[in-house]
């Protein structure tokens, strides 16, 4: 069924279809309408779940973690300051390998206060041990959220999953979205089986314990390896998704006209469409431009990035983020896989990124500019 809905509505629709049993969330702009929709679904009886009204984001994720330990599918959503307020619980949930799915509406961080979209919130939490994916449009928000449950809960992964969508550009913009049928989703998404990671009265366990220096690294290595195994699971999920729903997704990166590109711009999230349009225009003028959109930042698609970027003459990374005193975090990550020369910081606090400015980035690349540049 086709429906004209916002990105937040798409996230809520996906959660509705995924049938979690415990949802806990705290409101924050621009995530709020996700939570409102889910509360409506629970109150009108169309979603048979417990909606826990928590007093903070710290508790939102803590409740989800407890429910996950009790053996049920869980969901939470947040944004910006809220994500940072739950920051202590992020590595806790990940280290405990609780496959909570979270939707994060990307928003700027204070100070100065700002409610609009940039990606400093989630990028500051890349090391928290969560899978992080970034959607480009409302359809992908829905599809990624469905896939998130399947990937996170896979017994070979068991890592929580954060689906990111740009504040306002995606959360509050309406698009035509294909809504899957419940019966199709039931085929795509198996029931959650927590395995050993659940309370068991027949064979009781201790959870979330301390592990001293002689044992500690082993747990983190297992977690890291589970993240790497996630690539296979993501691949299988995307194949299955295509078979059932007819939409195909390309894994860690979405490369556009990169095959013969001399100049490539790496992007994240909703700005990518405009970047592709710009690349098309530049190609009309003889510039061999390509766009590489990152879909996943954790696990980081090293191989795919290296493969696409290595043949290019020069690469720029455009991102709505800055690690003060360093460079953009996406840039740093891209450079861990392949050479990239230019890091363009733009869109902070919801600032507009125009086609002209994007064309200017390619101009800078052609001129041989490098380093960090403010759009």
């Amino acid at each position: 069924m086709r429906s004209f809905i916002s990105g937040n509505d798409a996230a809520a629709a996906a959660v509705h279809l995924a049938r979690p049993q415990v949802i806990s969330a705290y409101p924050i702009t621009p995530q709020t309408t996700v939570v409102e929709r889910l509360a409506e679904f629970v109150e009108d009886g169309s979603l048979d779940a417990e909606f826990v009204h928590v007093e903070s984001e710290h508790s939102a994720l803590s409740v989800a973690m407890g429910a996950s330990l009790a053996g049920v599918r869980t969901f939470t959503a947040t944004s910006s300051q809220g994500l940072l307020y739950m920051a202590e619980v992020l590595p806790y949930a990940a280290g405990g390998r609780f496959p909570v799915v979270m939707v994060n509406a990307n928003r700027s961080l204070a100070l100065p206060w700002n409610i609009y979209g940039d990606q400093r919130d989630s990028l500051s939490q890349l090391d928290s041990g969560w899978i992080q994916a970034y959607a480009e449009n409302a359809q992908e928000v829905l599809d990624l959220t469905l896939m998130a449950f399947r990937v996170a809960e896979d017994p070979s992964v068991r890592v929580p999953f954060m689906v990111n969508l740009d504040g306002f550009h995606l959360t509050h913009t309406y698009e035509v979205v294909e809504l899957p049928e419940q019966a199709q989703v039931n085929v795509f998404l198996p029931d959650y089986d927590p395995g050993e990671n659940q309370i068991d009265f027949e064979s009781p366990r201790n959870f979330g314990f301390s592990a001293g220096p002689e044992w500690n690294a082993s747990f983190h290595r297992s977690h890291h390896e589970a993240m790497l195994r996630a690539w296979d699971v993501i691949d299988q999920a995307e194949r299955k998704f295509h078979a059932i729903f007819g939409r195909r997704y390309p894994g860690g990166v979405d490369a556009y006209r990169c095959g013969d590109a001399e100049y490539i711009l790496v992007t994240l999230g909703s700005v990518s469409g405009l970047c592709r349009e710009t690349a098309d225009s530049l190609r009309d003028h003889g510039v061999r431009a390509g766009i590489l959109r990152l879909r996943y930042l954790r696990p980081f698609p090293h191989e795919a990035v290296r493969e696409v970027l290595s043949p290019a003459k020069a690469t720029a990374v455009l991102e709505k983020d800055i690690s003060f005193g360093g460079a953009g975090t996406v840039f740093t990550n891209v450079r861990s896989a392949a050479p990239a020369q230019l890091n363009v910081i733009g869109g902070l606090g919801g600032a507009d990124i125009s086609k002209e400015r994007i064309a200017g980035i390619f101009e800078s690349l052609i001129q041989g500019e490098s380093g960090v540049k403010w759009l």
Partner: protein
Amino acid sequence: MPLKRLPDKAPELTAFEAGYLVSPNGEWRSVRPVIDMERCVRCGQCYLYCPDGAISPEISVDYDFCKGCGICAKICGKGAVAMRKESDYAQLHQRK
């Protein structure tokens, strides 16, 4: 309570068999409770008030886990628990 052996490797998840003990606490003691069973009336107060659960309901002390705090001696209404120096038992330990 019998001890278990050290696991060969850490588990994948922070989830593990409950009540898994690999080391005793008895070496912490400098004094040990010795119960005079002639005086003991089996009231169970020492069993009840032991922070380590090291005295059974049948009033026998688990010296592997008794830390020698002396609460049992204080709580006993019959003066049936004496705290004796652990050094007197050192030889016994060696033999063990």
